[in-house]
């Protein structure tokens, strides 16, 4: 069954970018405001789900050739490696640190290693959610 829902597809094209931007904002806002890797990941996943719903799996899989199962592995590995990094420097597993750095033009920005850890969370959430949804919907 080929669905051709013009209104949904047109809206999706625009809305998806808004959702992605919001997800991006949520992810980086996490340190001081509401947001974080988990919610950012869920938001990004919902944008992708919207794409899959309004078009079909084949089209989107061609446009975004990401293997979500690999993404899960990447996510968990990134999180684990940030934890191992602290071991190499002689701190307990998963110790984080932060530093305020002066950037030209942007001014002073706080850089925290927990952002790297949150990247892993984000990837895992996106990968996990979409693996589940796609494998169930492909099963039909």
């Amino acid at each position: 069954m080929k669905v051709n829902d013009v209104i949904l597809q047109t809206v999706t094209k625009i809305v998806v970018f808004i959702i992605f931007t919001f997800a991006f904002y949520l992810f980086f806002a996490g340190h001081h405001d509401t947001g974080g890797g988990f919610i950012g990941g869920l938001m990004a996943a919902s944008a992708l789900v919207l794409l899959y719903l309004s078009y079909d799996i084949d089209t989107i899989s061609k446009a975004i050739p990401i293997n979500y199962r690999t993404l899960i592995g990447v996510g968990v590995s990134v999180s684990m490696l940030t934890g191992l990094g602290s071991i190499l420097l002689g701190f307990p597993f998963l110790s984080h640190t932060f530093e305020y750095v002066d950037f030209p033009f942007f001014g002073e920005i706080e850089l925290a290693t927990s952002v790297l850890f949150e990247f892993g969370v984000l990837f895992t959430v996106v990968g996990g959610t979409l693996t589940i949804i796609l494998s169930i919907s492909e099963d039909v």
Partner: protein
Amino acid sequence: MSWVHLMIVLPLLFAVFIPLLYKAFPRIHTGWFVLVVPVLIFGYLATYLPMLANGGTAIYEIPWIPYLDINFTVFVDGLGLIFALIISGIGALVVIYSIYYLSKAREALHNFYVYLMMFMGAMLGVVLSDNMIVLYLFWELTSISSFLLIAYWYQRKQSRFGAQKAMLITVLGGFAMLASIIMIHNITGTFSIREVIAQSDLLVQHDLFLPAMLLLLLGAFTKSAQFPFHIWLPDAMEAPTPISAYLHSATMVKAGIYLVARFTPAFGGTPEWFWIVTFVGLFTLIWGSLNAVKQRDLKALLAFSTISQLGLIMSLLGMGSAALYFNPGDQGVQLHAYAVLAAVFHLINHSTFKGSLFMVVGIVDHETGTRDMRKLGGLMTIMPVSFTLAVIGSLSMAGLPPFNGFISKEMFFTGTLSAASLDIFNMSTYGAIIPVVAWIASVFTFIYSIILVYKTFLGKYQPERLEKKAHEAPLGMLIPPSILGFLVLAIFFFPNVVGDYALKPMVASIIPSAAGVFDDYAISWWHGFEPELFMTMAVVAVGLILFATLNRWIGLYNHMPQWMHLNNWFKHGLSGMERGSHKVIDWHMTGYIRDYLMYIFITIILIVGGSYFLLTDFTLYTENLASISLFEIVLALVLLGSTVLVMATRSRLTAVVSVGVLGYVVALFFIILRAPDLALTQLAIETVSVALYLLCFYHLPKLKGRSEEEGEKFKIGNFIVALGIGSLVTLLALSVNGYNLFEPISVYYGDSYDLAGAANMVNAILADFRGFDTFLEIVVVAIAGLGVYALVRLRLEKRGGTDESQ
């Protein structure tokens, strides 16, 4: 981190690279790369020998989980280091041997060497760890790697059976040992073996002393194949011969001996320890040697012989523990610690001669295609080098000069005679049994040693019954057993080199009060015409007579009653347990999620509800509650309405949407209560999960025998459980407000900006303070994702593809 730590983890780290090397260099046998590891470890650890000879020890510590008193502490003393040298030394020889034994074209070498390195690292960890929990971890790792190695040729049914049997028995013992470790920790308050030994008096007087000791010994006896747990060892012979030589004769089975030796200073000197260790050892000694005589498979013969020799060492350790009964400096210390000296000497000797014998048997198997002694014979002229090595190994095992087994066997007799003369522990009544049992077992040891050589290499050559044309093995395969054979001779002629550098430090570790008492003692093979020499001469005489008349009495074994075959016990026990667990699982695992929910809810109601009503009385505190606004009342009504709708509706889709409404309302509550993080997460999760539920429920087949129009019948049982769990949770939530049992931990997170540089406290907790929780949560997400994928996808592929089990 010290170099010794690195040596323990080196094999484990190297194991990661073995498959890569196997892939990258297909033309070079992977064993050559692996060989570097044991050689390196042996070379490094040997540098500690002079320190030991001077009575020194070394200790290195890495904190691991300090607040649980679990640290990766390495303790280098005589006992541990000599074991480690045996492990790495024999390991190196076994790797060389395996290079010629296992064909690089046919065998899965990468698996083999990964398992072997896993084992080597684990075994080094066992003998060098001071922390009992770390020791336990390595201990179980040896069981697992042994399982994998026995099942290396997993296509064979016998291999799988043997691997499973070994695993079940040794892991059973491992669990018992863990229980014992926890008991010891309760008594002494430490996991460090050295500190436990220092508190030996406290341990021995405690009520838990006997259970802790019995459980510890259960671990040691299962691992070291002591009666009645020895039944796994003959079946473990399904492993490739290098593995049998390494794990099941030289190293892993000696882990139990190591454990007994290591804990002798803590438990020894008590009658219970003395009696159990001595007599289990003696019984195993005689049982193993009696059974070895009737075997027809060469490896089975060696397996029973190993069981018997392990029993010998075990019984010596038991007899030697009597030395701890005496005050330091007493005459009795030296008299009985002598048995321990004999034990560690025989341990080293056994590793040399049994290792070489296993390798020779492997050569025979490799070059003739059979290990059945009825088909073999007359190989002496065809395989002269192997024959010589077999003679050296066998005669050493039989306890004849000029081989190292002779000296340690004489020392064994001395030990039994000293033990028989003990006037403590009720020994004056039963003591005389010990030398008698030891002598009878030695006669049978002599017989099976002769059988091994005679039936294989002498007698009539029967080429028509062999699968291959017999010829001598390649040089590389002969080198490792030759080195061991050379050691057998060298130790006989220069026993005091081993004595000074290895045995005396080992005795000092096992019997601390005997440190130094043997300083002036020189091991010698000639003591004059002592009772021990006459015992040996009688062994040879009676053994030769019995061997000559072997055919007349070997039939006696067939009259052994059925119940004495312990393997039947194991088989029936195992199948009985399988049937039992089948019944239990089939009874409650119905496959319906509603049944499982019932179990979960009923359990919660019984345990939580029960303790709630028994321990506390319900009181509703209202003074610290905020006032309820109209908006909240409306939300609560919507919540109630959608809940009722979930139950009342007949359409699945309506139910899913109502659950979604429930979730959104909860998110609104979060907003009112000023928890934006929670609200946002709740909204996103709700959106994604409603989409997922709709997807699933839309395609879900209708339940059998029910149509959507009829709806669900009212079930009173379900209603009661639902009502119970609902009211329980409500009551709990209401009463939680009134109690403040602990200081709230939220105070700590209050200054998250200073601690983690994050103004958002929730996220600081997630990423910084409790990062490990978050990490495990994403692992759960990963497992869930991959699990769903596997469930959905593999089922689909199986339908069209091939079934793997065929």
